[in-house]
């Protein structure tokens, strides 16, 4: 395929879909599929046919719309009317009301059961109103299994732009200009990383996409891969062109079967259209992508362990330096970015770095996808500008605490992050602010806890996770996490002493600093942050020293 053919294909796709007046999007993400979304889609398509509407209204599957609790979701475009918890039996009634009587079905509208006045246009709902979508813009709108729909939504235009009018240096400069930072958690400037790999001269370089999302409760990458796989693929291709790589690997965790399937479909379609392969769009750039499936080890999200896993070795990290940018996959310079980072690339190229950096804060540009979960009224997948306050996310988007409880803390960054207490609710969600509170941005897990949560047990839970997921290579992480877990368990059981807390503090700092990789380096974070913000919860659990004397126990 050459440039001209790409434009023709895009125009054709636009025409094909523009022919319909309205569109019914049925969310077919993992969660909605589990509640029978495929059947819902089938019944809607049948109902449209029966009512003679199939030439006017198009019904198709899409990716995640963000409210997995309310699924299966059905969205009608261009009105943005969303129906929740649709069953196959509802399809006929829904189609008749929406398209024949042209009166939205009030009782099935989104949040009809929780909001006094549900919104007919879901974009007016506070859940969506406060969001700003770059990565998830087309997620829940386009059919992720159809490359033509992606083309109709300006897909592969960014690739065309870089191949025809930009030098690799210019692409890197544009990414640098956007101030995009790695969305995997650490927040390293993406442009700088690309430049480092670009500068290492080698006849073979690799682009790797890290889709081994492993934080408990996080599903941002899964939703992007399921909802808009081509956006990630396009990002990888642009990265390949910028750094001079001809081969990409997408490492996706094995549990994400639908994401793997959709990404595989995307690769096949792109290959068929000549968007992957040799001399792409008539240029001298050749690139291909392969999928590697993770086998369920959290540590393989660490870049050096991920590389070992792709190479077919045991997934354990190696000391850095050397960094993958210099010596990565099979010893070659390798660029590793997160799924979400790649998904940002095409919009940056299309609209320019300046446009991207206008959103967010001075140090953290753009938006961030969070998986909002826990004791919150409206949980789900949200995308907000960097710097949005935690209060806005919890109370405006999330609708506040579910049930009668009071907000106690929000946990960010999963097992590598920390807890943010109520007095810091106004903190802006950006890399530096979260770091200053002893937490991290992480990949975007955001768990809201109410006053029924026991913070010592929260720390114990995450420590157990790290203990189980430690690869066992280095001593501090292997033994340290086990020791810290056992001590936390003792405190939770009401048998801990002040001595345990002191040992915990000492071990936490030791494991943080002495561990080989980021897993051990961040494993003590939930413990340290709960110790910092909720010390009284530890204190009140401890066995008082005089009680030990009274029962004849000795301080260990």
């Amino acid at each position: 395929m050459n440039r001209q053919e790409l434009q023709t294909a895009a125009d054709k796709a636009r025409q094909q879909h523009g022919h319909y007046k309205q569109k019914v999007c049925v969310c077919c993400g993992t969660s909605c599929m589990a509640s029978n979304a495929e059947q819902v889609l089938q019944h809607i398509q049948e109902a449209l046919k029966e009512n003679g509407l199939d030439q006017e209204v198009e019904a198709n599957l899409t990716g995640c719309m963000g409210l997995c609790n309310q699924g299966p979701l059905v969205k009608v475009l261009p009105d943005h009317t969303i129906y929740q918890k649709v069953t196959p039996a509802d399809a006929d009634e829904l189609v008749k009301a929406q398209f024949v009587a042209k009166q939205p079905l009030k009782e099935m509208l989104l949040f009809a059961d929780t909001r006094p006045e549900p919104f007919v246009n879901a974009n007016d709902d506070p859940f969506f109103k406060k969001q700003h979508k770059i990565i998830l813009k087309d997620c829940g709108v386009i059919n992720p299994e159809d490359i033509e729909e992606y083309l109709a939504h300006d897909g592969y235009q960014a690739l065309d732009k870089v191949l025809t009018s930009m030098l690799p240096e210019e692409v890197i400069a544009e990414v640098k200009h956007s101030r995009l930072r790695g969305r995997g958690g650490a927040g390293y400037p993406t442009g700088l990383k690309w430049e480092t790999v670009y500068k290492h001269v080698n006849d073979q370089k690799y682009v790797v996409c890290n889709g081994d999302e492993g934080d408990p409760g996080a599903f941002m990458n899964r939703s992007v891969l399921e909802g808009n796989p081509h956006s990630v693929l396009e990002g990888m291709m642009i990265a390949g062109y910028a750094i001079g790589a001809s081969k990409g690997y997408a490492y996706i965790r094995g549990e994400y079967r639908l994401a793997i399937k959709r990404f595989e479909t995307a690769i096949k379609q792109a290959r068929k259209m000549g968007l992957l392969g040799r001399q792409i769009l008539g240029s001298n750039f050749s690139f291909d992508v392969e999928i590697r499936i993770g086998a369920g080890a959290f540590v393989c999200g660490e870049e050096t362990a991920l590389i070992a896993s792709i190479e077919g070795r045991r997934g354990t990290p190696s000391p850095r330096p050397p960094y993958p940018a210099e010596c990565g996959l099979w010893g070659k310079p390798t660029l590793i970015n997160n799924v979400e980072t790649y998904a940002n690339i095409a919009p940056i190229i299309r609209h320019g770095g300046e446009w991207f950096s206008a959103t967010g804060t001075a140090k953290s540009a753009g938006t961030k996808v969070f998986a909002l979960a826990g004791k919150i009224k409206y949980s789900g997948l949200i995308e907000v500008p960097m710097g949005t306050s935690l209060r806005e996310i919890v109370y405006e988007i999330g609708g506040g605490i579910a049930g009668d409880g009071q907000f106690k803390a929000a946990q960010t960054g999963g097992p590598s992050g920390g807890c943010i207490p109520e007095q810091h609710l106004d903190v802006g969600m950006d890399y530096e602010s979260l770091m200053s509170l002893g937490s991290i941005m992480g990949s975007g897990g955001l768990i809201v806890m109410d006053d029924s949560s026991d913070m010592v047990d929260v720390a114990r839970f995450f420590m157990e996770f790290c203990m189980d997921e430690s690869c066992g290579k280095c001593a501090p992480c292997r033994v340290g996490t086990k020791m810290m877990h056992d001590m936390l368990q003792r405190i939770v059981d009401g048998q801990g002493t002040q001595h345990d807390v002191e040992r915990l503090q000492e071990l936490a700092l030791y494991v943080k600093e002495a561990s080989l990789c980021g897993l051990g380096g961040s494993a003590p974070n939930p413990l340290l942050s709960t110790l910092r913000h909720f010390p009284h919860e530890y204190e009140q659990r401890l066995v008082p020293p005089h009680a030990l004397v009274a029962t004849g126990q000795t301080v260990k």
Partner: protein
Amino acid sequence: MAAITIYINEQKIAADTSQTILEVCKANSIPMLTLCHLKGLHDIGACRLCLVEIEGVNRLLSACTTYATDQMSIKTATEKIQRYQRITVELFFAERNHVCAVCVANGNCELQDAGYAVGLDAIRYPYLYPKCDVDTSHDWFVMDHNRCIMCTRCVRVCTEVEGAGNWGVMNRGHQVRIISDFNTPWGESTTCTDCGKCMHACPTGAIWPKAMAQGQLDKFPEMIGELVEKRKLLTAGG
């Protein structure tokens, strides 16, 4: 390969970019604790005993895996490093069931030496007392997992020097274990060549020859490095 100047504990030292910090320290008689390092095997930075502070680097790096660069300023014995080394050794002792009094390697054990080096007088952490197997199925050797510290020197010597690949690692976290083939008894191994290099490479008494009493084990881990050097000479000359 380029000649450079580096500073270790404020001492000016001539080094080469092909050398790791550990190699420079060894060449200049600067004491450095190690357990997973063995000359002749590739370094993995797993035991974290050789951690050093490097000026301008905001984290501790393992000397065995970090190459010297020009004007690098290194500290090997700060209060923090010594404190961390002690904790590491304590954790090794608490992790499995190390009982020197009944061990064949007593007096010839690198873990024991490390204990003396860090001034260990008590273990401040609760012993884990894991249930570990003792594999006596091999005709000549015993593999006692109670004494294993997961340095993987046996795994590396078997793969890199002997080329047999008998030893491997299974599980994760504190449940990791060294395994023979696909976790079958060592005596039934189809890959083991009975060469005994793993026994020499083992820093503790985890691998030892049968019919040996407490404190009798005599090993030559340096032999591995010498062997590798000799082979290089042979390949170069042949």
